[in-house]
């Protein structure tokens, strides 16, 4: 199974992706944690030490450093995963597609976006779960180009902007043929948020993750909430989401 996590910046994409990854890995699944953000930080939510997250070589940067150009064919996804994946706890493999570090005239369509497209597209979904944490906003969803059998999670945080961006993400994903699109009402304050979001996004499957001071506290310190507060309400909610995702 391949899951793409999308949404407005700051809604909690990486945090939710991180919980999901840890829950799935902890319950025996083989998990690839794919950081598609050119500002990669998924590793933090997975519980990888910040120094390791900073020193990781994303696929594109590693290829460019070894003399690869965007005109050369990209090596097969499984080969890239073996080369550039970093092992994290519970057997999780963490890999990033590309990091943007300095202004340049290289274009992003030949760069990290295209790497994301090819890598996410080519990675096998057999016997493993791939969770891709996408860049903030809608652009990266177009590049990731999820398919019929993939799952798209559109994360919102209660703000009108995040709901509007999620609404567009659902429309884009449906247009790409994705059949399982789930709206996530993160930092939800009451049950009414579920109905409201279902109405706004016009999709049936909505998942509620409650507002949780434990997540905020972990976020302020750069910790994975999973390690800091494993039984906090938001953690418990995402555990259910993980179970639901793999059960069907």
């Amino acid at each position, binding site marked *: 199974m391949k899951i793409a996590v999308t949404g407005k910046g*700051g809604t909690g994409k990486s945090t939710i992706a991180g919980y999901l990854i840890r829950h799935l890995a902890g319950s025996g699944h083989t998990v690839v944690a794919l950081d598609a953000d050119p500002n990669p930080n998924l590793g933090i939510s997975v519980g990888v030490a910040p120094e390791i997250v900073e020193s990781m070589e994303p696929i594109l940067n590693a290829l460019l450093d070894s003399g690869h150009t965007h005109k050369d064919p990209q090596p097969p996804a499984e080969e890239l995963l073996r080369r550039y994946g970093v092992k994290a706890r519970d057997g999780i493999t963490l890999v990033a597609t590309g990091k943007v570090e300095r*202004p340049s005239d*290289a274009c*992003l369509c030949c760069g990290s976006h295209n790497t994301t497209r090819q890598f996410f597209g080519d990675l096998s979904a057999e016997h493993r779960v791939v969770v891709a944490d996408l860049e903030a906003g809608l652009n990266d969803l*177009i590049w990731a180009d999820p398919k019929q059998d993939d799952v798209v999670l559109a994360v919102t945080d209660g*703000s009108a902007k995040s709901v509007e961006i999620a609404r567009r993400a659902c429309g*884009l994903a449906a247009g790409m043929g994705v059949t399982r699109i789930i709206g996530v009402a993160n930092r939800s304050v009451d049950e009414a948020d579920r109905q409201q979001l279902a109405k706004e996004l016009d999709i049936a499957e909505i998942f509620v993750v409650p507002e949780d001071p434990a997540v905020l506290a972990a976020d302020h310190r750069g910790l994975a909430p999973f390690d800091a507060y494993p039984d906090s309400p938001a953690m418990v909610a995402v555990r259910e989401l993980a179970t639901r995702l793999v059960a069907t």
Partner: protein
Amino acid sequence: MQSQVLTARDRWAIETMQRQIAVLETRESQVRQAPEPVQQCAGWLALQRQVPGYERYLRPWIGGVGFDGAVPAIAEHRTALRVRLALADSEVARFDPTTRQRAQQQVGLRLAVIGKGGAGKTVLASTIARLLARRGRKVLAADLDTNPGLAMSLGMPPTEAGLPPEAIEEHEGGNYGFQLAGGLTPPEAVERFSTPGPDGVRYLGVGKISSESKWAAKQSVPAVVQILLGVGSPEWDVVADLEAGPTTPFERYHAFASDVMVVVGPAWRSALTVRRLLPMLTEVNPIIVASQYGDEPDHAHLAPWGRIPFDPAVREAERRGVAPLDACPDAPAMRAVESLVERLLDRAATVPSVEGGGR
């Protein structure tokens, strides 16, 4: 000199540079014709801020990667920009200190707002734009995000389209395959295609991504970038809200700005993002603004220049999708932005005007 076949990319670069010089020549002649010495001086001061923007935009081209055939033209262009800057410097130096000081107060801001998603960039940019406009200034609020948001925070109806088709034209060598329409100058583009918003702010933006418009949203981007670089009249304040993360500075959407405001929230990852952004801003003095602050300590080595408190009233406005300045004008966060605007204007008015003016 070795003759070189020009690629479409080279031709686009050369045309872009020629257009930039034409913009500056027009501006210079308008400045010379200004009736009052203070206006003339303000015009040259504005050019002191505008010309380095073109040079910042040009910087990654130097070395010619991707522009082999345009290497000589790029080198010439850089020299031409430096000559124009030296001209502006020498013109400014001709005015007496009193005139310069008065002129300095008339020169608009060129401000770009960047940071991690959710840090509060859009609320900040839109509120700054409206508060500047309330002071009677001409303000251009530029939306450089292909995701919707700025119009909402300004209190305007959402817009889907970027620039209309007549404002852009295809160029096979251009970024995203498009550029500003030939014959349309940046100041004309602002006059014709910006739309009026609350408090008299003028809004100009790129297109928005939706299921109906997957790629077209980007078509306005190169034109809007050139428009911002090309707005040189001192009367305009330009406030641009950039898409989250490192990709917009990567593509140098911020080149036009003499001030880049980097917004950091209390989250550790927000600080990580800012630490990654700062090395991309070597040619400007970044202004760090701490946003959504409670009683958290500041991030190490990111001492904020300004501070906007976390404000439940702003969060509620964001929930409802209305402009915080309309929903909660007296909320602490709004008052903090007001004082930030005051300080931005003071700062701009005291930038040394002869040596190193605005650079």
